[in-house]
């Protein structure tokens, strides 16, 4: 593949020599452009051949990125990106697995997968594009929309209180928990590289502006309401302190909240100690050890 800008066909697809298959369809000013850039830079920073990286996409504006990347990809059903991601790693733990998912898929439709797979410390990296809205379906509330906010599906204001993904991940055994801002590409890229290199469940909640359906939480709004954990001299092993930061809602902390080293799920599966599952040969299967109990 070459790096030159290719001519496009009538669908916006380049004809040959592509670095990416289709041009993004995001709105002007969408945080996805920045996150997309950070993903490419972040993955480039991982010392791993391109074909050994798999991106699992959920449904949403973020998931549409499946058509703009050139990695092996699985574009899943809505809310279901995490289970296949975990299984891809179990089937071939030599692969690096990144999940591109939104706040709706990760915290709403697929909330139980988020909660349960982090407990297993599956070695996958979750990049949750958190724009506090369902934007692909034109702006309804999401699990992270603040109470009282009026949206198309909540014309009198959201009644629920917002989901706190960082606090939940800290509470529920995730081994790496971070929050970053879409507008800081180098920082987010570095965090993605760190997440991929981390052995275990690494979770990055990305604060993503959606200028069309959530104009109030603009780039400027975020910049005025974020505090960098680095500035607080927060040290990642300090979970108690991390919690305090996560529980604060008038300001949003960004950076690495928590990180610990512990065995990943696949490292605790006895069948995977020696080899990957995909390398298991089925050319000669002997079932004789399994017959005696039925004789």
């Amino acid at each position, binding site marked *: 593949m070459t790096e030159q800008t290719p001519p496009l066909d009538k669908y916006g*697809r380049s004809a*040959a020599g*592509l670095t990416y298959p*289709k041009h993004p369809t995001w709105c002007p000013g969408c945080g996805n452009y920045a996150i997309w850039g950070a993903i490419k830079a972040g993955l480039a920073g991982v010392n791993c051949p391109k074909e050994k990286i798999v991106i699992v996409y959920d449904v949403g504006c973020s998931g549409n990125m499946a058509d703009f990347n050139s990695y092996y990809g699985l574009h899943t059903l809505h809310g279901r990106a995490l289970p296949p991601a975990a299984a891809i790693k179990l089937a071939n733990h030599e692969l690096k697995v990144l999940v591109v998912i939104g706040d709706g898929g990760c915290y709403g439709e697929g909330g139980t997968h988020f909660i349960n797979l982090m407990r297993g410390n599956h070695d996958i990296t979750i990049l949750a594009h958190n724009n506090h809205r369902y934007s692909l379906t034109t702006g309804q509330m999401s699990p992270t929309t603040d109470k009282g906010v009026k949206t198309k599906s909540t014309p009198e204001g959201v009644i629920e209180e917002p989901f706190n993904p960082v606090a939940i991940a800290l509470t529920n055994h995730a081994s790496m928990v971070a929050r970053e801002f879409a507008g800081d590409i180098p920082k987010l890229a570095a965090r993605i590289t760190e997440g991929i290199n981390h052995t275990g469940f690494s979770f990055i909640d990305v604060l993503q502006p959606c200028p069309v359906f959530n104009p109030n939480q603009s780039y400027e709004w975020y910049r005025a309401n974020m505090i960098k954990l680095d500035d607080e001299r927060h040290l990642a092993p300090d979970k108690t302190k991390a919690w305090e930061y996560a529980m604060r809602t008038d300001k949003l902390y960004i950076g690495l909240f928590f990180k610990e080293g512990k065995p990943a799920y696949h490292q605790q599966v006895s069948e995977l100690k020696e080899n990957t599952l995909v390398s298991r040969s089925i050319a000669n299967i002997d079932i004789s050890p399994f017959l005696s109990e039925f004789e």
Partner: protein
Amino acid sequence: MINKNTLNWKVAGFAGEGIMTTGLLMSKTCAKHGWYIFDYTEYPSLIRGGHNTYQVHAGPEPIHAQKWKVDVLVALNKNGLAFHKEELTSESMVIFDQEDDNVDISIYNLAGKNFNVPMVKLAQKVGGSRVMANNVALGASVFFLGLDLSILNQVIAQVFSDKGQEVINLNQKAAQAGYDFVKSNGGQPVVNLTKKPGTNNRLTLTGNEATGLGALAGGLSFYAAYPMTPSSSLLHYLAAKASKAGIVVKHAENENSAVNMAIGASFAGVKAMVGTAGGGFCYMTEGLGFASVAELPLVVFEGMRPGPALGMPTWTAQGDLAFVLSASQDEFPRIVLTPGDAEEAFLLVQKALDLAEKYQLLVIVVSDKYLAESRFTMPKPKTSYSHERMGIDTKPQADESGFYPRYRTDQPVSQRTLPGTANGGYIANSYEHDKYGFATEEGPERAAQMEKRMKKMELATSGMPEQYYEADAQPQVTLLSFGSTKNPIRAARELLHEEGIESAMLNFSWLWPFPKDQVTKVLNSGSKILVVEGNYQGQLARLITQETGIKVSDQLHRYDGRPFFAEDIVSYVKGTMLKKKL
């Protein structure tokens, strides 16, 4: 004592008091006599209490199903007497414990003989616990059935081998006490079957165990499930064997996760399967379409039980047929297999794994509680299995666009690549896609991909074997069924034969694609046709009409959670179809 072709033994008592193990011991004891067995259990969806039965039908010739009239009934409590008195004949023997449940046997007005055995007291006397009374009952039963006590002792040693010698000794002592008690108190055997020399070329196993064993033989590498009767025992079996077999078994957080995990594992290149019951299958339906549009091999095991919703968890039904044939939105190719017995389950799950990979599509293996949890005799299979991986491009070349044309449309099955392979990158997409897997909404591209996928059904049809068919020379009636109803129908045919009524049967183990030619031929063979199925509306009969244009007016349906009994089928054939006096 009478000479019989088979023996039929039943134990009844409270759930949670070891009845399942007691029944297993009896099944294995009969099998070790060189006989065929069929066992069938009924139990409630709770852990303690409720009524639990287990029956073992055995004999020197193949046994196909459970039987209504019992030779020996072990009643571990009063309900065991009250609920099953209709199943006794003048030659039956009832074993009960007068002292333990304060039984007045006279009030039951039982047919046949009965024998008071102080089962609990005898168990305690040899140093055992209350639950050991079941072994006393087994010892007594072995005597009445004319079985060999030493074979029961061998089976006890085998089944309890992981519990230590002390437990084995105690169980054997209790069995001996039961045997000695009835022998020394004037008991006489009620059945005398011809023994056959012990045979080592058969297995005794449940439908789910056969499915699990078949999956291992078929090269399964990844199994994900969420527990739900009657599929849980398949999860338990595979989880127990995972380490030795080198496969990964994942108890997922729910069925949605399980099916999507299997899709992920399949994408990464391993043979993947999920298992669930009808209710869990509802959750999983979302994944069926995903696997199909992404053309990833997927095998789904679906165990039917009565519904709707939670229905009756531990009972049997065949009511999911229409649902399974069309579950998940829009149209896509699928193969639906409906094994009828343990041997078919063993073979068809291998076939399912093979076909899923060969055609890159969804294969659903449909079972039910009756098949899943009943124990069968099946021929010992060969031990070595060889599988070639199919449809995987290990040296992919990107085309002029720089991407790999994973979904090229020049043939129904296009080569796929596995992550980790250089130059093979593509998107396995839940959206409609172009040949690279990138999402598309263009009409011609959509139509081409749709046609590519649907053409797999022609391949599947061409590779379909004949359905199970057996017939007398001049059948007056032909019985059509699918899945596990095969068993009572085979038993019914034997009963019809004894009464001089010639019959035939066709049992579907491949329901989709539909074996139209064979079925049309049978329907036009001139004999009367009866469709027997475990649902209310006659879903199989409707399918037959839909696919052949032929209506079948005689239909026998059952939807009370119980399997068909051969006796019921015979009485319908004789009374309703042939207008004979019953």
